[in-house]
């Protein structure tokens, strides 16, 4: 089981960090998952602000493991355009090592980039895209155990 969330850029004026896209498999107790993603932003924000202060030379877009909970692992990724990707995976899912996660984020990012390039997409709107859905679905299927 794993879940993927894509969060709006911080720089969006008033409402920050509102979800652009959330998807989870399986869909039961999705709400819990929403909370998990939402709370994980604490860590993301922290990391970002740390970069701002150049405390850490975090030059990579992939933020790595944000924090582990009993049953999930939460990973984060922030694009240069400050769009945040959060991925929650079942901690029991051993198939997913750092590299897999990383490459999944890359996939997400690429696909997101395409969306940004879709002239009919209005940046900041929630994402309703067949292409994106399919990509996410296939990606999840690939790893769902």
């Amino acid at each position, binding site marked *: 089981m794993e879940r993927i969330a894509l969060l709006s850029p911080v720089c969006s004026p008033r*409402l920050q960090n509102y*979800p652009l896209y959330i998807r989870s498999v399986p869909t039961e107790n*999705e709400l819990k998952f*929403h909370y998990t993603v939402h709370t994980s*932003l*604490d*860590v993301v924000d922290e990391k970002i602000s740390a970069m701002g202060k150049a405390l850490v030379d975090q030059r990579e877009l992939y933020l790595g493991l*944000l924090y582990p909970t009993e049953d999930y692992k939460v990973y984060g990724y922030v694009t240069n355009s400050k769009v945040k990707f959060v991925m929650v995976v079942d901690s029991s899912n051993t198939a997913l090592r750092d590299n897999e996660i990383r490459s999944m984020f890359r996939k997400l990012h690429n696909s997101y980039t395409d969306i940004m390039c879709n002239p009919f997409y*209005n940046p900041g709107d929630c994402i309703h895209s067949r292409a994106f859905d399919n990509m996410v679905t296939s990606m999840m299927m690939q790893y769902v155990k």
Partner: protein
Amino acid sequence: MAFVTLTGLDLIYNAVHRAVWDAFCANRRADRVPISFKVLPGDHEYPKCRTKRTSYEWYIPKGILKTGWMNKHLNLVPALVVVFYELDWDETQWKEKQSECATRVEIVRQSLQGRNTKVAVVLIQKKTPLPPGEDVIASERAAALCNACDLSGKSLFVLPHTDHLVGYIIRLENAFYEHAQTYYYTEIRRVKSHKEFLNKTTHQLLFVRHQFKIAFFSELKQDTQNALKNYRTAYNLVHELRAHETNMLEIKTMAGFINYKICRLCFQHNTPLDAIAQFRKHIDLCKKKIGSAELAFEHAAWMSKQFQAFGDLFDEAIKLGLTAIQTQNPGFYYQQAAHYAQERKQLANMLCNHDSSVTHPIPDPLETQSGVLDFYGQRSWRQGILSFDLSDPEKEKLGILALQLKERSVLHSELIITLLSNAVAQFKKYKCPRMKSHLMVQMGEEYYYAKDYTKALKLLDYVMCEYRSEGWWTLLTSILTTALKCSYLMAQLKDYITYSLELLGRASTLKEDQKSRIEKNLIKVLMNESPDPEPDCDASAVKTSQKLWADRVSLAGSNIFTIEVQDFVPFVQCKAKYLAPSFHVDVPVQFDIYLKADCPHPVRFSKLCVSFNNQEYNQHCVVEEAYQKSDILEQSSQGTMCLVPGKTRKFTFIFVAKTEDVGKKVEITSVDLILGSETGRCVILNWRGGGGDAASSQEALQAARSFKRRPKLPDNEVHWDSLTIQASTMIISRVPNISVQLRHEPPALTNEMYCLIVTVQSHEKTIAKDVKLTAGLKPGQDANLTQKTHVTLQGTEMCDDSYPALLPDIPVGDLQPGEKLEREVYIRCGTVGTRMFLVYVSYLINAVVEEKEIICKCHRDETVTIETVFPFDVAVKYVSTKFEHLDRVFADIPFLLMTDILSASPWPLSIVNSQLQLSASMISVDQLESYVENVVLQTGESASECFCLRCPPVTDSQGGVATGRYIISWKRSSAADSVPVVSTVITLPHVIVESIPLHVNADLPSFGRVRESLPIRYHLQNKTSLVQDVEVSVEPSDAFMFSGLKQIRLRILPGTRQEMLYNFYPLMAGYQQLPSLSINLLRFPSFTNQLLRRFIPTHIFVKPQGRQGDDASIAAA
């Protein structure tokens, strides 16, 4: 801590002993050795020691660890027993005492039969002992005593109770500590020694037990490193045990213990990561060890406990200076503990829902004869039974039942909430606002389950805004749903309504049917009925709440709720928009209120009203309608007071601005939409300012950026997104309907009374009352212009500096429609330069707006820039009587003052008069009259005057002599007679006056004729008070022959004049140089001929010979 017992101390009756004891107990700080002391009577019975079995062959352990064991070694079995005994070296009855002491020791030894506990003797003495070796008796008696008690010398101590008691005590206990150490050491050895008798098959339990004991003793021995090592092995051994439903609990319990020990030690050793790693391992290993399904809640409870315990350890460590981080802090463990607590609760609810008839079995299977278990983690009803198959299923059932019933009495929610709040406290520290809110939501929900709705709401309310402001609608919705339930169950009207409003709103992610349900309820509430209960609420709670609602209903009326919707996302959206950024006071102010409902069913409202920063207007902006309960939900009738979902409804308001608001902003301070009615219940949705809510600004922004095409709408409809809030407008004064014209003839001339003719004509339909004229220098220009500019309406007399620069509010009466009035404004500018002049006409007029009469103040202003120039430039020069330019004049010798008036004005000037006012030092040769009187000068023309003056000699002419003033009185030729004459005064320059010794002047005809004699007479006048010798000579010239003294020296008396006559005879015609006269004053060598030339002519015109006729005429001339 090492356990040491002290005997032979009488704390009650013996002060000395008391003091000793206190010295032991008092302030045991870290610097003191870790010993726990206990005073026991000398004949105290210590726990019996079982006879050591020589072989484990047939020994089958009944459990891992006895429940008593740890306590035994902490508090019962000492490492050392100290016997206190009062005895001085010089004791008289030494023998007796010695043997008594020996017996005491013996008694102790007896009761410690079989244990390795050490025994020590402390002699309490009155005297301070001499330094060792000096006291011979002491040493031998000491030896004797050791013999008697069969003690090693190391175990005998002397305690003189003198002043340095504490010092002695500390030395003592250090000694004790060493003994204890050795004791525990030997204990460890002993336990270890058992190991080799054990075999893997039957004695696994013992492996764990021994390992544990070793670790435990090491701990008592303060050897934490080994303790840790051994606990670790013990831990691994526990998990090697074959786990089965029956011993699962035991294993977990032990694992729990050991894990706790390990983690604590790790934190102690400041290796938190090891602690965490161990804990994770522990959890991973035990997570799945659930044990019997019927008691699943037990496992959850256990898990929760594990996490909580670790959380506590972690927190403890932090208090001791460990630093935690955002992603690794106790919070997570408390949170997890809470999580398991919740799970426990759920399981309990599932497994322990026996109906009330089921009672606690008797006899209570949880009872044991000893009242306690003898092994940790075993079931009370089958202690020590190791076989995995359940010997007595019946008993088993009862046992389980008992436990289940017991679980029922647990207050889960309390546990959960405490854990959660612990977590919250932690996350607050480690800046995790969202995590914090999340936990608070959980707490809220837990309170909800615990039926403490007030607390629940308090928490939920508190966090709602976080989720709202971050736009997490799903989460917000779920929170709202819970909140709604609470408010329902408490029959909290206002909250109930508020939450409904938002749950119906566009931010809510509820399904249509749910929304519809909520809306129906809301309407019921508005109609003063009780709403239907929220789904899946606790039945009993619903019962109570229904009563509450009923009561609410009964006390109808006085049920008006104002709800500030600004800060959330209500189901009605509102935007206020003025039609223009500014309105003239005499046109009605218009604005629209746009409303849009996002709820599933149409909603009626009873009233819509708008408030302004000027309340006056409020009453004009109200929409109201008699409110029939009946058609509240009726789809068909969509009258003005009904909002149809998704449709934008527009209300246009018109009001007439107050005249006093001219120049002010009229702001919409709030919009109120009233649902329900005063009679029943009513809710006032209140938007601060021009509407908008928590989500609207973001939406507006997105809409602005969007490239989406907006489908064409019928003209009367608009796109909600395309509407922008415009909540304030400016009231500006009525457009004046008069004309103001200015006539004048620029430029202005310095100091003249410049005439500016102002013509005001009214084009108003009605009479313009109280017309006022303001005219003059426009304010806000160079300050000193104000000094030099003066304005008046009277052109008749010259205005002086007392006059103002600006004439304010000159009343000029009323103006009939079409009437025209004219005023002359006279401006006197004292200096040249450009000035801006303002002419401002204000008046009052009645206007009718929306058949309402108002008096408007209108005004029109004209500004005009006027250049001020000098009317003319006056040039003054001094010339000799021969019109030669003079840079100085000579005393007593007449000269000419010439004035030149050049008109610089573009308009003709009439010079009324001119006047020369001479200073005292000047005398006019002939009387002065003006030559330019009434002369009119056109532009560029100039008028000149000439005055003949003489200046008497002056003593010192440094800086020259004042000449006087030249005054020109003038006015524009165009100006009316009434207009005063301007006098321009020109101060004449000073002249340098020089006196000369001799003044010469010649008189001779104006011309000569060839070959006709030409008589010339020179007058030489001695200006000095001395006799002067004068040499006069005349050089010949080719043009003349002459007769007369060619060269002479003569003497002239002071003041007198000498005359010399010459007769010149011109030889050639033309302008000829006269034979030059040269004079030489012996007294005044400075008197030169150049100077002379000033006074006498050098040339003369000589006519050719002419006919006789002419001569006559010439003679006549």
